């Protein structure tokens, strides 16, 4: 009897322990939101285990961490964040979790742009949505590569190879965006979105973006802001109004109905979509947005 029980216990222990050990060898890292998580997965490959705090379709501006998130942060070796004031809730989470993880700010090395200049209450704030320019995405990737190598020197060659492959893809994507935007007449490159997240994209590729709300979704809209936007659309003959997956679409519909501007499809700004959506990776997200811009502005 004893031997049989021993055999069962030993077999169970082996079964449980084998995958456990394999997992422990993987580097546990946290990415604050899904787009950053996609970058980290591309560079880290099989050597890292990534957890996104704000998952697909989530809104990182108003995220509330759960105890499970705090535990994951406590267990992690690295925490990748966007910085530039994007994750206002992060400092509290890091302190509360008592983690010893290194915090890696992926936007170090990026020149931040001022928050939306059209609204007087946004002065002094920087725009955190730096990933919307593919050139900036390459800086993110380089920062992630260096941080992973520093934390796990044994994987240096793997990380470097992964990063090089991914950077090449981003280069190709950058060229693609430039080619498509070049096909849109300059006077039609004027877009309104419900969330002011595309400033970096606009600066990099020469498209003019305006939003009825400030740079953060936390501010409630006043009648004056909406009136200003409508006046602007009429005056500048703006071609398209876009909805977006995180803020109030009713307001954009109202503005479009009132001005006769075309309503574009959904743009993705702060989050990837889940497997059912059409922006499951950063590259898909940029391609999707590009297709929407081109469709609404040339059509």
């Amino acid at each position, binding site marked *: 009897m004893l031997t049989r029980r021993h055999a069962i216990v030993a077999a169970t222990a082996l079964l449980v322990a084998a995958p456990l050990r394999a997992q422990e060898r993987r580097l546990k890292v946290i990415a604050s939101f899904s787009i950053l998580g996609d970058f980290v997965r591309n560079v880290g490959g099989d050597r890292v285990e990534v957890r996104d705090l704000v998952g697909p379709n989530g809104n990182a501006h108003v995220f509330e961490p759960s105890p499970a998130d705090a535990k994951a942060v406590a267990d992690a070796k690295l925490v990748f964040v966007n910085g530039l004031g994007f994750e206002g809730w992060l400092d509290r989470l890091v302190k509360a979790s008592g983690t010893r993880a290194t915090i890696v700010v992926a936007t170090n090395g990026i020149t931040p742009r001022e928050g939306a200049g059209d609204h007087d209450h946004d002065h002094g704030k920087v725009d955190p949505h730096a990933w919307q320019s593919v050139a900036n995405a390459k800086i993110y990737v380089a920062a992630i590569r260096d941080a992973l190598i520093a934390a796990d020197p044994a994987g240096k060659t793997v990380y470097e190879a992964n990063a090089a492959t991914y950077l090449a893809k981003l280069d190709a994507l950058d060229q693609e965006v430039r080619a498509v935007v070049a096909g849109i007449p300059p006077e039609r490159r004027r877009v309104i979105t419900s969330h002011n997240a595309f400033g970096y994209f606009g600066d990099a590729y020469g498209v003019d973006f305006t939003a009825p709300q400030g740079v953060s979704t936390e501010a409630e809209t006043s009648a004056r802001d909406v009136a200003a936007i409508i006046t602007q659309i009429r005056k500048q003959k703006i071609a398209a109004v876009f909805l977006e997956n995180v803020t109030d*679409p*009713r307001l954009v519909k109202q503005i479009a109905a009132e001005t006769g501007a075309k309503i574009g499809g959904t743009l993705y700004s702060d989050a990837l979509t889940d497997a059912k959506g059409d922006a499951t990776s950063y590259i898909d997200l940029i391609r999707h947005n590009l297709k929407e811009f081109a469709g609404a502005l040339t059509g």
Partner: protein
Amino acid sequence: MRGAEDRGVEHDPKKLTDFSDQIMRPTNTCCTARVPMYDFLIAPFTEFEFMRRALAGALALALGAGPLGVFLMLRRMSLVGDAMAHAILPGAAIGFLLSGLSLFAMTAGGLIAGFVVALLAGLVARATELKEDAALATFYLLSLALGVTIVSLKGTNIDLLHVLFGNVLALDDQTLLLIAVNATIILIVLALIYRPLVIECVDPGFMRSVSRAGGPAHLAFLVLVVVNLVSGFHALGTLLAVGIMMLPAAIGRFWARDVSTMIVVATASGVLVGYAGLLLSFHAGVASGPAIILTAGALYVVSLLFGRVGGLLRQLFPGRHLEA
């Protein structure tokens, strides 16, 4: 200082005629030649359709909210509105979770949650020793807890801000129609149950001795409160929807002694603060929902000081009025 109702009544017809015949006008005219008063008071509404929609929504809301608020206040149920707003919130949130910003889902969810809480609280209060306020507190807290649990089980962190704070600036045809239909239902049903409601406010014992209509009328009244709050949360959000109901009622209390005048004053001041709040939001650039409620707050303070019935200044210098 009896300007509250007069101003509201005076402005209203003028505005409504403008509202109808200005729709066809070209809207991009620059109005330098006109008088500044026109620019300040009327032009925002002639120039922008969203302002006209917001105004129509606020007016329809005030029409139903005025009388309901007065009855809530007279029945010492001023805080019930607040409790009911919390009760409908989880229903609306669940509707939002299941089908996004769908008018139907959010309205149905809010109505169901509100009705269930109102009916259960009413039944428990009438069948057991527990008083209605305690029963209501119990059920709205349970409803709220249930709602928050369901939202957290779902796991995505959706933007509930838009459920908490509706947007009067983004009323589409459907929502506007819903608010108007709700206001119509409220006014018709209130007319039907007006007599038992008033009697029960004044003398519940007498009401019980002459009629059994008190209970059904009371339940119907609670249902109307829920209907009005659901309208209100599309326009102002659940929290401020209570404000547009209770503040005008409190204002009315300072200007009238009898119920019908109180209702007229309350409704008129609701209409007035809806209009003035939108103007405030337009000219000062503050968020529109809070602007409406804060305007009502200002009018309340004025009424509190100068009101004909029990206003603070009248109490200090009562002489002349006692003679009359």
